[in-house]
């Protein structure tokens, strides 16, 4: 059974369609990224999924419970919001105690274990208001982890963090993922989260443009080639004359070409470049990163529109 399942979710604010026909599932053990630029509908999706906002259409189930009745998940869900929800005048330990009081379910990790896990053992007597942003985020994560949840949802876990804070949070997420915890991360910082994700759903303008294992999303760009040439203008001219493929990027002497569904073979591309006298130095598959895949998907979505 899916830990988190969204079916045909729609959310409109007046005439603005914030989320359109979104569906995806997250299964136990996955680290699933809900990715997209600002304004793509990630936070609206999470708000609907967490029962904070009523969807216009569609349904969401979290740990087998409808999103409007999340209190029935019985403490199996942990959520960390963009802005840490902390009692700033109370100590780190007192914040954990307060959150445990609201959660109500006993058992699972002790507070000391959780503080140890997030690396705040030495600061448990410090006031929450005196913590740095990164430490505050770790404390917020600690409040979500106490009680041994099965699923933890993190909304923009890296927002506002400096490189050191980012590394700390990512290391912590990596540690949690290794322990088998199911995680959902909503973020636009693709480059940072790529190493910890196993799956992703990419959203653009409220629509899902890709979902599935990360390897599949990256693999969707198999037709991408990178040509290094000596004469870039000549190469670009030759490529534009011949149809079928698409130049999707160029930096200096390196040109990214998407063979896409043209059916063309890399050898044909090489032949065109050689014949044009562009001085082909190297032709290789483009090393896809999540950010590249994201750019390609956004471009495809824009072209589709």
């Amino acid at each position, binding site marked *: 059974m899916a830990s988190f399942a969204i079916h045909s979710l729609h959310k409109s604010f007046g005439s603005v369609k914030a989320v359109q026909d979104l569906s995806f599932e997250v299964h136990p053990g996955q680290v699933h990224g809900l990715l997209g630029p600002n304004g793509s509908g990630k936070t609206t999706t999470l*708000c609907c999924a*967490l*029962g*904070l*906002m*009523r969807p216009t259409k569609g349904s969401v189930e979290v740990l087998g419970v409808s999103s409007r*009745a*999340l*209190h029935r*998940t*019985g*403490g199996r*869900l*942990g*959520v960390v*919001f963009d*802005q840490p*929800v902390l*009692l700033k005048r109370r100590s780190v330990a007192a914040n954990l105690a*307060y*959150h445990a*009081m*609201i*959660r*109500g*379910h006993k058992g699972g990790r002790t507070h000391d274990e959780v503080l140890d896990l997030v690396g705040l053992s030495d600061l448990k007597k410090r006031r929450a208001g005196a913590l740095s942003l990164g430490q505050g985020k770790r404390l917020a994560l600690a409040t979500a982890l106490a009680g041994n949840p099965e699923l933890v949802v993190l909304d923009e876990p890296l927002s506002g963090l400096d490189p050191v804070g980012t590394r700390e949070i990512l290391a912590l997420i990596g540690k949690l993922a290794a322990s088998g915890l199911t995680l959902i991360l909503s973020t636009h910082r693709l480059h940072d989260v790529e190493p910890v994700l196993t799956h992703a759903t990419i959203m653009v303008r409220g629509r899902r443009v890709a979902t599935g294992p990360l390897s599949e999303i990256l693999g969707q760009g198999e037709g991408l080639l990178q040509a290094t040439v000596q004469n870039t203008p000549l190469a670009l001219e030759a490529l534009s004359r011949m149809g079928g493929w698409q130049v999707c990027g160029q930096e200096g002497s390196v040109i990214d070409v998407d063979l896409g569904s043209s059916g063309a073979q890399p050898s044909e591309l090489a032949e065109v470049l050689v014949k044009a006298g562009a001085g082909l130095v190297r032709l290789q598959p483009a090393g896809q990163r999540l950010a590249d895949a994201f750019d390609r998907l956004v471009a495809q979505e824009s072209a589709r529109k």
Partner: protein
Amino acid sequence: MTGTLRILRSEFDRLIRSLSLWIVGVTVGAVAAVSALTSSIQILGQGSVESGGGWACMLDGMRTGLALTVFALLVTSARSLAGDHESGLLRMAVTRSVSRPALVLGRLLIAPLPILGGLLASFLGAWLVARSQLDFGPLVEEGYEILSAEELRGEVALGLFATLPALVALWAFGLLISACSRTAVSAVATTLVLFVAFDLIKESLSQESLYLVFASFAPSLSDSSPLGEAAQVVQGFSDRGFSDELLSLAMWLPWAQALLIVGAAVAVIRSRTL
């Protein structure tokens, strides 16, 4: 139900650790004491009361203390849901085993704590001063016993008992405004403006229409509460005091209106985006 109890417990924890609420409690006691002191000076100055002046003195102090308590209750309840919405605590609670209605019900059930706290502070401040200045015997003026000590005690108890439901309804009213507001500041401002506005137009209302609103039974700047009437009775004004019909109205009407208000607050919280 367990969610309601968890919210009740967490609110209790926050209230008793709130320094500002302790300061308010001490202020209420001090204001009640000052009011009782000025009242005692007045009673002693008139010289007509030979015995039992402590009752009127104490009730004057308590009325002032409770009027201040009313404002503190309104501010605290109005800040409650809206403030926690702003800080994200409501979001956090609904994703952690607490239903939306429990957010309101837990905060409603905490009402006796600040109400009884305000009552106790008012009583202590006023009683200590009244006790030191005057006596709590039968009310005797110019040699005549107007009311026995038992009767006076009964009037005070009845006045207090009939005033308390209105305080619960006021707390519920603050919660409703809080549930409807986006920010704590707007919730507090709206609640106070509505209460003071009603206080200002109270005197132009007929008695029939005045006592159809729970707020009329609460001590305020323009006091029409059962406690206010009791304060007149213990001074020997035999034409004052609530009729039996009004007393019974004071006992049930605020409860009924509080239930409706809480129902509305729950409906608002159930439907709004958190």
